[in-house]
């Protein structure tokens, strides 16, 4: 699916989207590392928070750019707004997960959380790759299909993880803590799929125009 048959959009806008993709990838990588070496790498929560703030700044810059006169957007503004919101959500959920680990005084990670963080990182890498392709006018299909597949994996892992908590005799406090964490990881992966949906919409409109 090739993009931009019509006029090329503002390059600064595409650059900001690419930066947002890189930020999403960085935050999810740090979350996976944090969970793999938890509690030794608890300090990464602070770095992920900085990523979240950076994500907010980039989202604000993109929206500000959309509102500027004389900037040729080329895409549907509503699509861009949805894209920016979904990108911001990915980092927000990553940050929420990292924060919950400290907030709930988690002593040790769970294997399922590590697996979900691995899926989130892979999906975020595909999101980043799709946004790089968008800027370079290349096809997005491969990355978008990968995101959908990863989202399916995430759903399955998340369901199994929650089911493992409801085995007889497990500490109820542990159920409360980890159910929240599994859900925020899954929501992060779902937000990656939202990004894929919006990019599909953009590509479709560009192709049919």
């Amino acid at each position, binding site marked *: 699916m090739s993009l931009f048959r019509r006029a090329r959009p503002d390059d600064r806008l595409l650059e900001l989207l690419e930066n947002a993709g890189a930020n999403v990838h960085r935050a999810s990588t740090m979350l996976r590392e944090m969970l793999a070496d938890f*509690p030794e790498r608890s300090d990464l929560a602070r770095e992920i928070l900085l990523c979240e703030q950076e994500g907010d700044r980039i989202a604000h810059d993109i929206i500000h750019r959309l509102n500027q006169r004389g900037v040729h957007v080329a895409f549907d503004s509503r699509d861009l707004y949805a894209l920016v919101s979904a990108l911001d959500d990915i980092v927000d959920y990553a940050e929420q997960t990292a924060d919950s680990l400290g907030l709930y005084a988690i*002593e*040790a*990670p*769970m294997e399922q959380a590590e697996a979900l963080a691995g899926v989130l990182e892979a999906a975020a890498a595909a999101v980043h790759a799709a946004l790089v392709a968008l800027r370079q006018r290349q096809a997005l299909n491969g990355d978008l299909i990968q995101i959908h597949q990863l989202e399916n994996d995430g759903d399955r892992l998340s369901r199994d993880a929650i089911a493992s908590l409801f085995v007889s005799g*497990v*500490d109820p406090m*542990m159920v409360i803590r980890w159910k929240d964490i599994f859900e925020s990881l899954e929501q992060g992966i779902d937000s990656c799929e939202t990004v894929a949906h919006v990019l599909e919409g953009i590509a479709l409109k560009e192709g049919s125009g």
Partner: protein
Amino acid sequence: MSRAGRGRRAAARTRNLYFQGKKRLTATLWPGTVNCLRARQCNDFTPPPLLTLLMQPGPIRLAVIDSDSGFVRVLVKRMEGMSWHFQTFSAPVPTEQLVAMRLNALVVDPALLGPGAEEFIEGIAGEVPGLGVIVCSTRSTVAQRVRALRLGADDWVSKPCHPEEVVARIESVVRRRRRAVSRPDSGRMLAGELEVHPDQYQAVVAGRSLNLTRRQFELIQLLVEAHGQVLQREEIYQRVWGYAMAHGDRSVDVFVRKLRQALEAHSPRWEYIHTHFGIGYRLEPRLKAEHVQSPEPAPGRPPEAREQQVPVAVPPPLDLMTST
């Protein structure tokens, strides 16, 4: 030169080495220190467990950290009369140095230590579980006294005070400490250099506390009590955490990792906890290969045979002793 003369010279040499660059120390040294320092120069010296040493009946080993020269002088006179082994300091002393002295009691003036006094008291009380800490201070508030006692001090004496009262309080604290440790139901367990004191929630190596959290202590106690048997992760979780282990929970692995780090820092020559992949863990103290002395080659054997000879590391049996 007579044997006694050679001994005195050797002792003086050791003493000079010890005090090199430490002029702030007053040179009152107990006889045991010289022997201890000499022994430390040997490679094969392994210090006896501190708590065992401290709780043996005998003269009290004491350090006084106080810059009030008049108070220290009269106290020293009393202690000399009682044949105590003591050392006085007129400046702050590192905790490590005090740990190495194997003291029964410590008299300390917080004014000398400055703002870090409470941290020091907490640190030394935590590091040496058998040490009695007596704080001796001129001016203090109720809050300061309460805080120090809660942080680990055993007694607080306000100056001006009679030296006889200070001596009596030191004796009282040491007596209580010795009684507490020598209680018949203390259930002390030994594994390699590790001592586990269930009644005090303390795990100690060569006199130094591992500073474990409650859960870490319960885990090491469980492993030591298993007498070298492999315990499954699920069983460990059930017995330490009190709940069924959720599939994928890595709590046991993380806590074992922390225990290994603490043991490695305090007892680097020994390997304690062994992993059985897919099953669980086993605690069996074993000297690391590099610390196991290879046996002497048999005389007359060809060099090839000697090269092929593999040093056999015979693991000592788990030394699990429960005092009765």
